[in-house]
């Protein structure tokens, strides 16, 4: 293989961007929660897998196409996240970061092992929408393209929601300064519940898309949470747009490492990138310095 063939380079770039778009949907949700409540949700990837397994069940028993099951799964997980915040996350908001890390770690252990009990550690997949679009010299995998398009649309929709609507403005206000937001008459607790629900719904949507591309098991969460962390460190913690660019960057770097070295090393890229960024700039590339919990 001619390594520096422009066609291969471009093909890898396309693959990387497609993968990155899916990461973006996942990582933006994680960053949203961190921004609003200063809680790092270690169970985020498990929420994604809740979406993935819901889509798997719908496909397996009812024959639903994953793109259709989005319509059912995403609202359901939104409600789940909404109430999860109320019973669990609300208890740790404003407490030291250690407490919220450990609490969400506990949640992820519970979800992971319930997943193992229900589905075993066997890998599942949803073999729907296969094949590739061939355009000239390039081949674009259909499921990846579909996942990337849906992911970009959803991420853009959430971004516009945060940027343009009144409710979105309230969410941004809480993430800027919760106490002042409360003084201005914003129901901070409701905002936190909504935000967590939104973040869980984004994770679940990513999970549904994931079923079309990868085979997955309850234990797949670990890889994805690692990628998310690399992304939000690159993009800056709590920075929604930063997470988007970080995702595309990680996707592309993984594609090149997978293409030129081996796909197994591509798994470790996220971690190495994370450590490298922390070494150079301890507050992330987009540089939102870590602030003490002020909620």
């Amino acid at each position, binding site marked *: 293989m001619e390594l520096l063939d422009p066609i291969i380079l471009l093909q890898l770039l396309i693959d990387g961007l497609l993968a990155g778009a899916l990461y973006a949907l996942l990582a933006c949700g994680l960053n949203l929660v961190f921004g609003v409540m200063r809680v*790092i949700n*270690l169970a985020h990837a498990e929420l994604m897998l809740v979406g993935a397994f819901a889509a798997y069940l719908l496909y397996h028993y009812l024959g639903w196409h994953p793109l259709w099951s989005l319509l059912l799964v995403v609202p359901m997980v939104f409600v789940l996240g909404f109430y999860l915040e109320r019973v*669990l996350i609300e*208890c*740790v908001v*404003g*407490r*030291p*970061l*250690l*407490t919220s*890390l*450990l*609490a969400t*770690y*506990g*949640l*992820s*252990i*519970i979800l*992971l*092992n*319930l997943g*193992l*009990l229900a589905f075993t550690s066997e890998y599942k997949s949803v073999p729907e929408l296969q094949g590739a679009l061939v355009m000239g010299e390039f081949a674009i995998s259909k499921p990846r393209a579909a996942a990337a398009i849906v992911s970009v649309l959803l991420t853009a929709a959430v971004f516009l929601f945060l940027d343009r609507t009144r409710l979105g403005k309230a969410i941004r206000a809480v993430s800027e300064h*919760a*106490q002042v937001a*409360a003084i201005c008459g914003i129901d*901070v*607790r409701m905002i936190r519940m909504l935000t967590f629900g939104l973040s869980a719904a984004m994770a679940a949507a990513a999970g549904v898309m994931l079923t079309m591309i990868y085979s997955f098991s309850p234990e797949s969460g*670990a*890889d994805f*949470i*690692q990628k998310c*962390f690399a992304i939000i*460190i690159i993009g800056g*913690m709590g920075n929604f747009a930063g997470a988007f660019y970080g995702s595309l960057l990680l996707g592309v770097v993984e594609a090149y490492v997978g293409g030129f070295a081996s796909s*197994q*090393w591509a*798994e*470790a890229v*996220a*971690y190495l990138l*994370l*450590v490298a960024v*922390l*070494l150079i700039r*301890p507050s992330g590339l987009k540089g939102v310095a*870590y602030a003490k919990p002020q*909620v």
Partner: protein
Amino acid sequence: MPNRKYKDLWLGTALLMLAMTAPLYVNDYYQSFLLQVFMMIALGQAWNLISGMTGYVSFGHTAFFGVGAYAGALLLLAGFPWWLAVLKGGGIALLLAIPLGLLTLRLRGPYFAIAMLGLNEVGRIAATLWTDLTHGGDGISLAPDLLPSLRTNYFSMLTLATTATLIVAYVYRSRFGLELRAIREDEEAAEMVGVNTVANKVMAFVLSALIPGAVGAVYAMYTSYINPQSVFSPALNIQIIVIVLFGGSGTVWGPLIGAGVVMVLRELLWAQFPAAHLALLGVLLLAVVLYLPGGLLSFVRARPQGRADSQVRKTP
């Protein structure tokens, strides 16, 4: 309070005596069980040293255990005597911890936890991919004639648990320990009064990597077979954290109590619901974090000396 100090000393000595004489009157099954309790005590104390004392949660401590296990197994195969393999296992984990600590402990707050979270995974990937050294996913089997007896392993593990506990007890009372707890309570304030926070954190981290390394090596000799999944094990990681928090993090007795109670619970639960036991550990972790921040020890001692976050700041 000198009284309590002596009471702790007497209680500790009595427990140690009991543990040392146990092989005389219990069968192999209980010896094995006690060995695992000692292992969890040693690992818990090591985690306690960095995470309990400074509040910097390490989600990747099992990585040092895994490195020690591989180092111990490979050194044993290379013909070193078992005790040297154990010491070197600890030494290698320590050497690995120095650059890691220097790198990650300059980071504040969540960044350290995030950087450590993936370490265990990286260890597992490395152990799987580096087939020339580690035999990859096939793992390493140790021939029975190379291995020390169960009783030797029992005493090695007991020694490690005792050493780890004594280190924590010593650190707890020393100026170094006071500085570590100052970092936990308020790092900026600690820095302001002249605590060299980075040096202290790195020191605690390196010390806390030494024990899991040695424990890993003994574990490899105890089970006689290791593979990447069994030693870079996420389940072990969870157990260490749950045990320390359950007993009372940042204290000397916490990991001892936690290891005793959790291991007995695990033994009982394991028989009845083998699959659900980790999910139950997760529930236990949540319950402790939310409702019992000082751990079991806060029942025993009136004045909570564990986590400071029992005084919760709560706003709208």
